[in-house]
């Protein structure tokens, strides 16, 4: 069964360092997302991406964050200068459609980011 894959599964970094989280969405999906989940909190939307551009971003997704689809398969999230509060599980997701029936999200297993 097709699945969303994410690497790394766990990354530990020093505050102020740059981090890139990588995702390979399901191949025929057109919509891509990053969500994050701080330990014990809810899953929060960061950004959605369609047709090679950001379609929506949340207030969390500030200038320190960026996304890219460098080739036909990878979808990356970059955090330029990590802060302690960026420590969370980051989930990549993809869907065939945006919203509604067919808009269910397929999530990866997550990348746990720990900022020291």
């Amino acid at each position, binding site marked *: 069964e097709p699945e*969303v894959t994410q690497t790394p599964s766990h990354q530990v970094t020093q505050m102020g360092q740059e981090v890139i989280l990588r995702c390979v969405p399901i191949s025929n999906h057109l919509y891509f*997302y990053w*969500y994050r989940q701080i330990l014990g*909190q*809810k*899953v*929060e*939307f960061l950004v*959605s991406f369609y047709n090679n551009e950001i379609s*929506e971003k949340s207030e969390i997704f500030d200038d320190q964050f960026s996304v890219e689809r460098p080739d036909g398969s990878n979808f990356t999230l970059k955090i330029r200068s990590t802060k302690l509060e960026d420590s969370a*599980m980051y*989930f990549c*997701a993809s869907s065939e459609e*945006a*919203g*509604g*029936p067919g*808009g*269910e*999200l*397929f*999530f*990866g*297993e*997550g990348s*746990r980011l720990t900022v020291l």
Partner: protein
Amino acid sequence: SQKIEQNSEALNIQEGKTATLTCNYTNYSPAYLQWYRQDPGRGPVFLLLIRENEKEKRKERLKVTFDTTLKQSLFHITASQPADSATYLCALPPYYGNNRLAFGKGNQVVVIP
């Protein structure tokens, strides 16, 4: 935008019984609502989608209802099994016309053998 409310207390239930979870939302009624399962340390897994014109949807032992008057969805697991122990997330568009999903905090279910 929407406030999505799920019970923060874990639901402990005996194996074989029906677990019922509630999702309340506060503002506009969305065109659809989704339920996901999340196991500890793992990504959410899609379970069911129900549209605003559907009162009820079933999938195997799962049943979801959608009451736009009450602004509420109920999620039922019938004949619960220990393997059903997980956190169940309600998700819906955060405001009218938006297509991304906002998630509730989730409701943990513990099925006791």
